[in-house]
């Protein structure tokens, strides 16, 4: 029996291979709950989870809420707009006020890298990073790892390409850290304007040309192009991005015949991915969403002291 020895889940960077395996195994046994008629177990009855979202989010927020509810925890969701942050309160003050109400876990989505780390230093409740700035999105990476393992029965030794804005993607960072820890080989691809400095230090190969990058890959992950983040200088426009870096059927042919296509969503059809690929037979994009609930249930459960036989 193994316990999860962390108060918070701030990033994949803090997790060991054993931690990740524990989370994935736990998620595997919890996944079945979501397919029951009565989708609820009493495991976390009497526990409270605050979903604190400073940035708009549909998928992650609902996923966390569902995960908590299926484990019978009480949940409260607040967004920056409805909170006193909009009235000028600092994050630390907000955190202290939340702490005063004694929640067990706080799920934080924030536009500043390191915001969950700041919160974790200030409050007793466990903090789950639901995406901080351009740093990490650990639960997304864990559900990606879960989905890969489910489809390929393994992670170690797989060839994975991640295509898009690596610089500004917290998903990419967490996926790179998680995949390399679990023994996969990662190639990152996208325009040079979207590659962070010295990314090779994270143990990945950089291949800018997506056709070359997807060659013989087991997994191809795409990232959302976010016009609102990337401004005007990182690429000339959506039309150019789609034609130079968008994933279409022709490019997919370069990958292994049983390749799976992943995307953290929300997808921009016709930009980073064509509809025929997104909806095609290789796509596991909706499985990722399904698995997201199971993985988040596992994280909530483990952070509240649960263990896995």
């Amino acid at each position, binding site marked *: 029996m193994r316990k999860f020895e962390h108060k918070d889940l701030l990033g994949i960077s803090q997790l060991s291979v054993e931690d990740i395996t524990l989370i994935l195994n736990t998620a595997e046994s919890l996944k079945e709950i979501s397919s029951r008629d009565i989708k609820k177990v009493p495991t976390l009855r009497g526990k409270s989870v605050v979903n604190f979202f400073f940035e708009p989010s549909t998928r992650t927020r609902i996923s966390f809420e569902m995960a908590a509810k299926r484990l019978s925890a009480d949940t409260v969701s607040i967004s920056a707009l409805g909170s006193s942050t909009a009235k000028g309160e600092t994050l630390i003050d907000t955190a202290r006020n939340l702490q005063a109400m004694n929640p067990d876990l706080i799920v934080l989505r924030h536009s500043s*890298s*390191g915001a969950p780390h700041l919160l974790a230093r200030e409050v007793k409740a466990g903090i789950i990073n639901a995406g901080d700035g351009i*740093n990490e999105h650990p639960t997304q990476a864990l559900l990606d790892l879960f989905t890969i393992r489910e489809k390929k029965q393994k992670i170690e030794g797989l060839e994975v390409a991640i295509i898009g804005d690596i610089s500004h993607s917290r998903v990419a960072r967490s996926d790179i850290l998680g995949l390399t820890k679990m023994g996969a080989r990662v190639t990152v691809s996208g325009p040079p304007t979207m590659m962070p*400095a*010295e*990314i090779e230090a994270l143990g990945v190969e950089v291949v800018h040309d997506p056709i070359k990058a997807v060659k013989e890959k087991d997994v191809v992950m795409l990232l959302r192009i976010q016009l609102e983040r990337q401004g005007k200088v990182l690429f000339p426009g959506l039309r150019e991005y789609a034609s130079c870096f968008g994933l279409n059927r022709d490019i997919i042919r370069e990958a292994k015949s049983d390749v799976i296509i992943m995307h953290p969503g929300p997808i921009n059809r016709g930009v980073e991915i064509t509809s025929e690929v997104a909806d095609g037979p290789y796509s596991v994009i909706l499985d990722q969403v399904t698995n997201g609930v199971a993985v988040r249930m596992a994280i909530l459960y483990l952070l509240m002291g649960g263990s896995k036989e």
Partner: protein
Amino acid sequence: MWIKGGKVVDPVKGTVKQVDLLVENGKIAKMLPPDIFEDIGADLRIIDASNRVIVPGLIDMHVHLREPGHEYKETISTGARAAVAGGFTSLACMPNTLPPNDSRSVTEFILMQAERAGLAKVYPIAAITMGQKGEALTEFGDLRDAGAVGVSDDGFPVADSEVMRRALEYARYQGLTVISHCEDRHLSRGGVMHEGVVSTRTGLPGIPAAGEEIMVFREISLSKLTGCPVHIAHVSTAGSVELIRRARDEGVPVTAETAPHYFSLDHNAVKGYDTKAKMNPPLRTPDDVQAIKDGLARGIIDVIATDHAPHSNLEKDLEFDKAAFGIIGLETALPLTLDLVRQGILGLPEAIGKLSCNAYALLRIPRGRLIEGAQADLSIIDTECEYVLREEDIISKSKNSPFIGKTLKGRNDLTMVGGKVVWERDAAIGHQQSRQIA
């Protein structure tokens, strides 16, 4: 006053010698070899400086005193007190106050407040352009007459190269030193730490070294074009050091300073999102730190100045990207500089020179030498004292130092400005007699 038994550092001559000092009427009256001077029985305060080092009054030529406008962070009085505690007798303060120091009235106000505080000497650096907007030059002549010793737009560097060219030309004529904070603000836009492997790992937007170096190169080019001197503030990258070295070899009149944090810390200090390690320019790589040390050792970097930038916890206890840039430095500069001596990078007189005569010469300030007849500005330092810096020991109004909790070695025990003891560590120095002339 008789200061006896100490070793006097003379950075100009490059010597460290045991000398007794007699201070009278605010000046160094006599400097005598040990054991010659005898107590003449007058009402003489005797300061026992044995096992201590006596240095000429140090100057920090790059500080932010926040007054007028941001008195909750620091005032001229609290900043000057932190300065004398840290061993500095003179300060040159940057113009980014509210309003900015772009006029005689602000310059005179700063001098008046410094006079009232009666601690360290304060030398205002005025803005290069009105409102630090990078457009119209300020009245250099009037500002110099009011007491300014240099001009700089500091954190709002002049982007328009023609304005900078004219500033250099006009400042030389008016006898003002031009100090340039080198930053291409387009390239650094949005950045909060050095762009490199740590920014990639922490997901923090980066500030590339090139953002500094492009401007260093521009200032060197303008200096070459005009023949006018320029002083580069807080050099932080290996590339900048190399550009300055080449320019100096060619005879371009460029001088440079760095801050203690650029030779004491690297970008790894940002891991964990500690906003006390956030400053501009940012902490760079270990290779840059080495290059800064080399630059100091080879005389490419003339001056050590702290860029003392007090911020309250309102600006610092925030998310990393939202926190203000800058750290305080007045009370840690001395031990950090003495580390360079212990590492064998600088000799003691050389190190003290970078905190004194080099900067005084640059700013044309006729102070900071321990010779007979000079103003008695000095500090008595215990170079061997080791201690852990605690937040509650910090005298500056703001406590934003990444060195809190670290062990420092070397501490100022007593500071004298114009013959007056303006700061003294309690019980630090044995008093043989308590009667005092000053």
